[in-house]
């Protein structure tokens, strides 16, 4: 019955294009090569958590050779059953999120191709690595520069929200919901299956998307809604009436120079919306009514992100931005980015003002650049989007909020999360490891790159590094950069050869790990038998001279870098020495005993692994430790007294 209903519906779909309206023009000159352009008609059935669609894909071969095949990503098939690559790799878990009860049919989803035609002729094909990729056999090869048009009809069944997409009660997050073409570069297609950890890679284009939904739903979406003037009340509305069904309405959406399209929907009775403009960008923020106290914080974070990205990279070029705070029982959808749309997420009340909602919002907005516009391959080099975005997030949180948490005595700096995670697994996989081949994805994609970029900044200097990242962002926007593009630009701007840096930090797994191993006092004595030129021997009594200081440094990690040692001697004299670090250890002697010593005193190495043993003093810093020990036990005592331990 359900299938019959859909078939009937599918027949009606072309008629829903009843009132073609002229699409707005975002950019007179395209910002990106528009290689994959979509016209989509989607009919959403929120009761069944399903969507029926037809699309026209206009794809241009920008490669160097002809191709007679074309891969379509059917990402929702990752949720089809337990044998997909996604499920095999992730076992139904993704970064703390779990899929719904797998014994329920509604926890699973799929994307089913109903037909693929070109010029009215039906095309066949076969699945790739798994059912999340489908290879179409073309009737004839498409030569470089030629354009192919495909008409595709499909249906999507959404899983219970998990790993970015799906439904939860009255909320639907439609992500990776339509068949999407892979990326053809040179003579090769890139169209990886949907893996558990890694994300996506696709070409830019225009999107004209009509989404047909029941009345009473709000749609938060990528792109811009073409508004409708209601002749009854003369008001401007986002959705158009559906001429075929007065209980439904159609959102007509449009976007240029983006490479994906997502939307979320929920009843407008149970969702709040705030619209505002900042620096020429129309921002729509959709949020849970119970989260209204936190919304100003979201707005401030969005404004700060728009301002800082404009200052550091370039002005956000799109006219719109949608921010969605998903419901608490749809946390699988939050913390994700789509072109011109981000999934933030917050809670109802945060009395201690931990900047978690801000971190998420700033991070996801950062992806508008490092994913949205730079559009590197997220499967092959996840650090280019997640790492650069984490670096942006750390700097933005430090600059705008002075860290993740600020109080009189305790602070969490902007890079706290990255440092913590990095120190847990400092010798994780090389940054260039493919995402799904990495055993330390979170560290390799997010936190280690943030620390590595901070290290590069310390090496090149703040101004040069700013120029490097700005130039990289501007030159490589809309061009699918790789790490080699970043290296080329960094070397050009800084005028330095970065081969060693790249082999140590980007391609390598070593750590920068130095410590002060031992500090000692050398007694210096003189005297003993003295034989002069004439051969006369005389004995001078043994006597003590002023003692000397000795320090032993050790290199424990594999990365060799020169490091500075600062010492203060008992005479009050301060000295700095430089060790090239080539050997595993070294001794330095000083004319007086050492009273204080510190490695890397000028913080040349943010990535230095051990700062506990990078400093030394004969006297322990007791007061601060006593203070915190007293605070901890006071807190514990008061908790026990609070519960009335009798």
């Amino acid at each position, binding site marked *: 019955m359900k299938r019959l209903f859909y078939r009937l519906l599918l027949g009606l779909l072309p008629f829903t294009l009843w009132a073609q309206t002229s699409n707005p023009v975002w950019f007179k000159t395209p910002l990106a090569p528009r290689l994959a352009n979509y016209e989509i008609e989607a009919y959403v059935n929120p009761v069944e958590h399903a969507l029926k669609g037809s699309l026209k894909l206009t794809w241009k071969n920008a490669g160097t050779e002809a191709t007679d095949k074309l891969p379509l990503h059917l990402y929702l098939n990752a949720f089809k059953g337990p044998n997909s690559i996604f499920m095999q790799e992730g076992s139904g878990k993704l970064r703390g999120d779990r899929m719904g009860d797998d014994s329920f049919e509604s926890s699973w989803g799929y994307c089913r191709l109903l037909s693929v035609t070109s010029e009215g002729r039906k095309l066949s094909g076969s699945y790739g690595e798994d059912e999340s990729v489908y290879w179409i056999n073309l009737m004839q090869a498409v030569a470089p520069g030629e354009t192919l048009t495909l008409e595709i009809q499909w249906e999507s069944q959404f899983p219970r929200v998990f790993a970015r997409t799906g439904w939860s009660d009255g909320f639907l997050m439609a992500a990776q919901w339509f068949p999407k073409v892979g990326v053809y570069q040179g003579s090769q297609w890139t169209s990886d299956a949907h893996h558990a950890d890694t994300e996506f890679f696709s070409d830019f284009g225009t999107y004209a998307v009509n989404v047909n939904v029941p009345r009473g739903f709000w749609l938060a979406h990528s792109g811009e809604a073409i508004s409708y003037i209601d002749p009854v009340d003369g008001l401007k509305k986002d959705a158009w009436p559906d001429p075929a069904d007065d209980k439904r309405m159609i959102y007509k959406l449009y976007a240029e120079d983006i490479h994906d399209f997502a939307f979320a929907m929920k009843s407008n009775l149970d969702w709040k919306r705030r619209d505002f403009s900042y620096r020429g960008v129309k921002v729509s923020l959709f949020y849970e009514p119970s989260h209204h106290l936190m919304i100003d914080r979201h707005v401030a974070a969005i404004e700060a992100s728009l301002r800082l990205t404009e200052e550091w990279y370039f002005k956000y070029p799109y006219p719109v931005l949608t921010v969605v705070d998903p419901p608490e029982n749809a946390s699988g959808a939050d913390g994700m980015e789509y072109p011109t749309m981000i999934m933030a997420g917050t809670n109802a009340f945060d009395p201690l003002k931990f900047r978690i909602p801000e971190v998420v919002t700033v991070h996801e907005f950062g992806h508008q650049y490092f994913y949205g516009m730079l559009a590197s391959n997220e499967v092959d080099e996840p650090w280019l989007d997640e790492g650069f975005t984490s670096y942006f997030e750390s700097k933005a949180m430090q600059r705008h909020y002075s860290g993740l948490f600020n109080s009189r005595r305790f602070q969490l700096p902007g890079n706290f999360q990255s440092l913590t995670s990095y120190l847990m697994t400092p010798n994780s996989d090389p940054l260039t490891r493919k995402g799904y081949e990495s055993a330390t994805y979170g560290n390799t994609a997010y936190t280690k790159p943030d620390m590595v970029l901070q290290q590069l900044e310390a090496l090149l200097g703040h101004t040069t590094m700013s120029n490097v990242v700005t130039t990289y962002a501007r030159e490589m926007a809309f061009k699918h950069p790789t790490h080699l593009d970043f290296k080329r630009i960094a070397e050009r701007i800084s005028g330095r050869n970065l081969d060693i840096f790249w082999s140590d930090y980007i391609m390598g797994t070593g750590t920068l790990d130095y410590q002060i191993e031992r500090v000692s006092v050398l007694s210096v004595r003189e005297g003993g038998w003295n034989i002069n030129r004439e051969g006369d021997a005389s004995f001078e009594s043994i006597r003590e001279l002023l003692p000397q200081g000795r320090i032993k440094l050790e290199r424990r990690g594999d990365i060799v870098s020169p490091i500075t040692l600062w010492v203060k001697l008992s005479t009050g004299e301060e000295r700095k020495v430089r060790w090239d670090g080539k050997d595993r250890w070294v001794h330095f002697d000083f004319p007086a005993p050492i009273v204080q010593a510190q490695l890397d005193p000028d913080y040349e190495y943010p990535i230095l692994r051990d700062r506990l043993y990078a400093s030394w003093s004969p006297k322990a810093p007791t007061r601060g430790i006593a203070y*915190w020990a007293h605070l901890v036990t006071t807190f514990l005592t008061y908790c026990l007294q*609070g519960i009335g331990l009798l």
Partner: protein
Amino acid sequence: METFQTSNEYSPQGPWAFVKKSLTPTCSREDAEFILSWVAFAVAGAWSLKSRWLDLMAYSNGSSMLAQDWGTRLSGNDLVYFLKGSPTITNVESFVGPVFIFLSLGILFLILRNGWRLQAHTLGQPAHFSPWIKGLGDALIIGLLPTILLGWLLGWLGDGLRWIGTLPAMWVAFLWSILLPMALTSFWMIQWSICRVQRLIGPVTDYKHHLRFCLNAIWKNIGSWLSLAMISTTLRLALSYGALWGAWRWGAGTSAALWSVILIQVGVTILNAGILRSLLMNVVHFLSNQHFVLKTVEDLKRRVL
């Protein structure tokens, strides 16, 4: 003219009637031991933590300087370097050290014993271990489930406040979420105290009767005991918050500031211990009154019949 019916002495009274009497210090050895054991918990715990952390920083006849600014400012990054840098920190136990754990547990046991000795001393009885531990079993049997149910009911209040969604309501709900579990634990502690003191006053011949009596002792005066638990918990939390707030403000930039922090900490620990002592005494006075009235009524009945 005072009669049998109007005299407070001969009528059963709720716990609030004994607050003044309970607050009056007796300056007995047991009083001092109870309060000093709380001070020992706070001070000895801090001392052992401090020693442990200094040990973790010590190397090569000296120490790391990582903590040199911690008296005025602690960065989360420093904490991570400390936790990840020291090769001997593998878990919470190795971080706080076995001395802290055993010392704290030992003093906690001492606090509980001294509270019990204080109650027994007031009743002029030896503080045997048996009623104390059996009373704990009684309280678990009769007190745990009702207290949890009460907490569940009162927890709805907080949820209701959250539902209102205004900033003041959210703050009240937040404070309520801290106060409620503490006050209810305190309420259950009172139940335990009643069970053990009841066992001390009279030997348990009929166990069901004993449990019924203990349950009635608290639930027939639920408003009084609950309000007493709530108010005393609020008072203790307010004092504690004040001390922590002061310590946070002052920091330990100088030795004088550190000593001020320690002195205030000790002072508030003593005040809180005094409040807890008054709760212990209140239970004793309340049950003594209950028994006195029951005994008087029984004597009267015997005389009349």
